[in-house]
């Protein structure tokens, strides 16, 4: 668990873990991944009841967070979700709830109750299929009277198939804007993608001349602050999920090294294996540390929140590959079998590495944040 948590937060995270282990353990995730079982809609109303989707929603709409620090609380849930590879990306719903809370119209705010309760899910369509994560990526907007027409394709939308609403980033006259669209908006279609990750599903959101009224805008056009804040929150929550997954993958590998024998000894007694495990655990601890720093900074909206969020996404994105590769190596042949859970982690981490910005994109962003 991320350190420095209050008693309330601890209880919140422990309840989350208990729920996951009894309702949707990795064995269930695997069956969903292999399409042998579909994720029950009840999962979302249950996690809605647990409060995972209400953290960024004001109390009058059924929201609230245990500690009053929604980013940190969401980080704790994200860590557990990553640890157990939970399906159904909820980062999008939380981000959409935050966007509406911060900038939504009265009409949009009516949706908050459903989002908080898990009765409706939302996804954030930010990046384009080529891997750009600027608001303007992939979609063009033209004005049409008081409204707008959106055209283009957003890529790598997490679990779009579950979403009733899409928060779509785009640029209007060169200025970033956010639009809230229902999944059944005319001209909007979801093109499911095949992919490496088996535990989340990804899709392209294709917008063919989608006519959007002015009332669909969330916040101000050119209200850069809102989009920036959403990016930070989405990045650090994705990082928290990755840290959960990396930690569990490492724990699984350490356990393997403690038990697997070769040449009459457990392999974890060989210095070469011990040193690899030490290096991997360093990567895990560094990932935890930068994730904690980034979550805290984003929660507190400190001036360095943007760079810490990007640094965390960049570092943990690289560490995810290193830890995945190191753990696969130490497992040997058994880790190469479909039946072993290792590859589920490996696939999810390689994908989360890219979602809401891959390391190279965030590194370039860090330079720009510093005016270079």
């Amino acid at each position, binding site marked *: 668990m991320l350190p420095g948590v209050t008693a309330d937060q601890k209880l919140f995270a422990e309840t989350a873990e208990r729920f996951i282990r009894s309702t949707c353990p990795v064995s269930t995730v695997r069956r969903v991944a292999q399409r042998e079982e579909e994720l029950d809609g009840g999962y979302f109303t249950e996690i809605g009841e647990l409060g995972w989707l209400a953290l960024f929603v004001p109390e009058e709409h059924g929201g609230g967070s245990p500690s009053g620090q929604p980013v940190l609380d969401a980080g704790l849930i994200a860590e557990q979700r990553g640890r157990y590879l939970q399906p159904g990306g909820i980062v999008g719903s939380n981000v959409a709830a935050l966007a509406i809370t911060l900038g939504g119209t009265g009409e949009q705010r009516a949706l908050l109750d459903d989002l908080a309760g898990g009765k409706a899910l939302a996804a954030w369509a930010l990046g384009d299929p080529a891997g750009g994560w600027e608001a303007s990526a992939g979609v063009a907007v033209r004005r049409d009277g008081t409204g707008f027409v959106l055209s283009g394709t957003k890529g790598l939308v997490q679990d779009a198939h579950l979403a009733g609403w899409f928060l779509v980033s785009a640029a209007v006259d060169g200025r970033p804007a956010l639009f809230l669209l229902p999944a059944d908006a005319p001209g909007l279609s979801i093109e499911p*993608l095949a992919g490496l990750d088996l535990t989340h599903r990804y899709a392209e959101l294709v917008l063919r001349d989608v006519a959007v009224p002015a009332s669909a805008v969330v916040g101000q056009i050119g209200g850069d602050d809102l989009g920036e804040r959403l990016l930070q929150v989405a990045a650090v929550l994705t990082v928290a999920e990755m840290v959960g997954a990396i930690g569990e993958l490492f724990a699984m590998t350490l356990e393997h090294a403690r038990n697997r024998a070769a040449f009459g000894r457990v392999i974890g007694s060989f210095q070469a294996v011990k040193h690899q495990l030490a290096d991997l655990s360093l990567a895990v601890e560094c990932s935890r540390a930068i994730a904690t720093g980034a979550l805290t900074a984003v929660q507190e909206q400190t001036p360095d929140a943007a760079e810490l969020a990007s640094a965390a996404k960049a570092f943990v994105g690289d560490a995810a*590959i290193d830890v995945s590769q190191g753990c696969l190596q130490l497992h040997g042949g058994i880790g190469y079998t479909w039946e072993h859970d290792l590859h589920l982690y490996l696939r999810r981490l390689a994908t989360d590495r890219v979602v809401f910005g891959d390391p190279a994109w965030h590194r370039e962003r860090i330079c720009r944040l510093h005016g270079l």
Partner: protein
Amino acid sequence: MSGQTADDLEAYRREVRAWLAANLDPRDDDAPARLRGGDAANLSPERVAQQRDLQRRVHEGGYTGITWPAEFGGQGLTPAHEEIFAQESRGYVVADLGIAGLTTTRVCGPTILAHGTDEFRRTHIPRMLSGEEIWVQLFSEPGAGSDLAGVSTRATRTDAGDWVLNGSKVWTSGAYYADYGLCLARTDPTVPKHRGLTWFGVPLTSDGVTIRPIREINGSSEFCEEFFDDVVVSDANRIGAVGDGWTVARTMMVFERLGGDPDESPRHSGARELAPDLVALARRVGRQDDPVTRQLIARAHVIDLVKEQLDAYVAAQAESGTANPNLGSYSKLAAGTLNPVRASIGLEIAAAAGVAWHPEDTEASTTALNYLNGRILAIAGGTNEMQRNGISERILGLPREPAHDLDRPFNELRHN
């Protein structure tokens, strides 16, 4: 036999040419030389039967086991004759029995020739040459990977003098279409691990044998695992003396190294493409002009060149005859450490396109598959760690690891 003259060889070549032209089909050059490992799972029963027929035709023509002793069904000729047949037959369709076929003639056959009884050799070698018997190696176990001699599969002797096998084997290529397995089993767990082992030829149709494909993380199934439940094996099927299995294993490992897949490291022949998979990828995602991407592409190409040059360098030293016989570990470790780097480069270039794609786009999953497969050579056939041990001890001459398991009885050792 060593007295053959150039004329003899020329006559042989003419004879081969005539036979090939009369009996085999010319090869379509675009077809792959033989099925690669990755496709081994695609060998249908019909295809296997067809290839066995083809193999029998060549055998009946007298062109299998060219250097093997005539008394066991070979031709008793020289490596020069074998080379002539190899050269001449290159343009014809010859039998392709996949990896198990290669294992039969390059590993199991030579091992049985070296250690089998006369009776066993007379029975089985000709059938191996004719395609009637396909053999696989049953060596690795779920509980014994790097520790090759740590096998737990038990062979217990019956009062009648036969043996009963119990245990399991794993990572066997092509077992699902094989007839026999050359199986290493523990016949005495009360002595140190290298001393209580014995080999058996096990008919894979025996009662109690279960063969299952292993599904790998990339979704395909190249390998099998085998389970033995009270499988009765005749003592006549024993290869080598009881308890002498490690001697036989060492022979086998030499043949395994020599008989390595000839297509795996083709010598460079002229033009090279610049990391074609990655250039294609970069173009797909529109990053071919991005300096960061170009650096990554060139890094991958340099990896490709270095591996190619290292293989050639190691081969050149091996040909000199005086080189350290363990230099091949460098090629193995280079692949085991550089392949994962190259696979990760793909992810870096691809970004979003590397992890999700349109289902109908058949090329789009290449980057992800390469990533999943990137560590195969870091693990299979001797892990990076085993190569590093070998290099440091057998090439650099550093002290061996203190061994805790060489002198103690196997059943007192910690094992899986």
